[in-house]
């Protein structure tokens, strides 16, 4: 495509390209300048705010930052572990729920009704309540002996988020045209293969942005397991704050949370970019 285009470039096209380049430069320059102006205004405002030195000391203290960092980081390791297992659990349970919800078989009617009740209720209960119910309710039953709180927290996150993810996936499944299924079955693919090779990949592509949002908010909500007493990043920060009366550890926790979400945001961007590129390349001569 590009090679044929570069062979003859008319003066008109050359002029157009120059114009485009100038426009690009201009917009980059504009954005740099406006960012600098905004940053300057914010700095100025803070500098003249009467309480700024105090706020700076209690939220952005270098000393406390250095002190809190290793402990909060250690707590973050627990968050990441919980997140890892929660993602696997949500993927499995969410897909199952979505499959049940979209099934048509009359034999599955009772399951379908249960799945609908489940997703409706779970999406109505605040995450923190689910955490309390699981975190204190299940040990209260005294059947399983001592269960680590992190495990209970993971279970609660899975139960809660599966409901959201199931609804997103269901919408995705239903968006895949029935003729796609018919096409797949006509080739002789089994219903399992059809789901795995044809329906799920198409559904996932359609709902990828929504799933990414759920994932990012799940990443934050994993921090709520601290209410059960698990020493995650938030809890570690809380302990430090309670002993020092300085809030910097919370800022440390926030910075670390943001840092962990950046790779996933970049991944999401990369993925949607790739899809776009895919759609633009090839084919055309």
């Amino acid at each position, binding site marked *: 495509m590009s090679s044929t285009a570069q062979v003859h470039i008319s003066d008109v096209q050359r002029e157009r390209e120059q114009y485009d380049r100038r426009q690009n430069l201009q917009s980059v320059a504009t954005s740099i300048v406006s960012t600098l102006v905004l940053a300057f205004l914010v700095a100025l405002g803070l500098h003249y705010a009467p309480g700024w030195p105090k706020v700076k000391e209690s939220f952005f203290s270098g000393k406390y930052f250095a002190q809190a960092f290793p402990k909060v980081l250690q707590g973050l390791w627990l968050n990441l572990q919980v997140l890892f297992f929660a993602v696997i659990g949500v993927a499995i349970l969410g897909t199952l729920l979505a499959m049940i919800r979209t099934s048509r078989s009359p034999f599955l009617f009772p399951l379908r009704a249960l799945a609908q009740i489940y997703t409706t209720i779970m999406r109505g209960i605040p995450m923190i309540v689910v955490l309390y119910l699981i975190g204190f309710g299940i040990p209260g039953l005294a059947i399983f002996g001592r269960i680590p709180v992190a495990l209970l927290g993971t279970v609660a996150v899975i139960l809660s988020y599966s409901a959201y993810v199931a609804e997103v996936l269901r919408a995705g499944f239903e968006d895949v045209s029935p003729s*796609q299924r018919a*096409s797949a079955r006509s080739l002789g*693919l089994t219903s399992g293969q059809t789901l795995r090779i044809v329906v799920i990949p198409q559904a996932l592509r359609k709902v990828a942005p929504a799933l990414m949002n759920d994932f990012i908010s799940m990443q934050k909500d994993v921090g709520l397991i601290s209410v059960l007493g698990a020493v995650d990043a938030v809890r570690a920060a809380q302990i430090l704050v309670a002993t020092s009366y300085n809030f910097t550890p919370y800022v440390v926790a926030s910075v670390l949370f943001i840092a962990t979400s950046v790779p996933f945001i970049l991944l999401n961007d990369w993925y949607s970019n790739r899809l776009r590129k895919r759609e633009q390349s*090839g084919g055309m001569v």
Partner: protein
Amino acid sequence: MSITTSTPETGPEAPVLRLDQVRKSYGGNEVLKGISFDIRPHETVALLGPSGSGKSTLMKCINLLERVNDGQIWLGDTDITDPRVDRDRCRSRIGVVFQQFNLFPHMNVLKNVTLGAIKVHGVPKDQARERALELLDRIGMRQKANAYPDQLSGGQQQRVAIVRSLMTDPELLLLDEITSALDPMLVGEVLEMVSELTDKGTTILMATHEMGFAHHAADRIVLLLNGVIAENGSPRQVMDESENPRTKEFFSHFRSL
């Protein structure tokens, strides 16, 4: 029912497909009211009928996308309406092309074409690839092997869909109005491909509204009216010489166009 089961003929001229008193209803709406006909090896049969007469329904019953309410369908010597039969296996013996949305949009042409051969028939990947490229080459689309369906014209998509259905040498090819979603400019290239298959002796059952094409390409016409077979004969017998007033009425709509 199975006590009165008819047994299929065998031998080289045994029908590829045989329908015996096939009935199908949706709710209280009986769409197929006892359909019986045969398709012999290398025959091209055009299934004609007004919109809503049940052509697609019949195709879906043959392809086991719908279950019949009564009657039997034989594919070779398999009664595919027998509930004990392996339905996925039966489907894999029939090639199907629908009106539209045949190709999987998330796979490139090559993957689309090789999917069934690899996943269903267990053909080794290299071998499937080679055959796919050879077939694509024959329709002049080898250079599109890595393109995605949305980068192809409608006609190209349908031709790829036909290639896909041919990958595993199906015993029977079902074509359900494969040109009716196409821009008129693109109909020709697809029909031409069907003509080539007909000449090569592929056994085909096609539903179509292209009367001229049916007349020229089909060995036999089956006309469905109100859920029953009104005509079953050569194109000349059915389209030109029939004295049945309802048949004449049906074809008169197309002559006036």
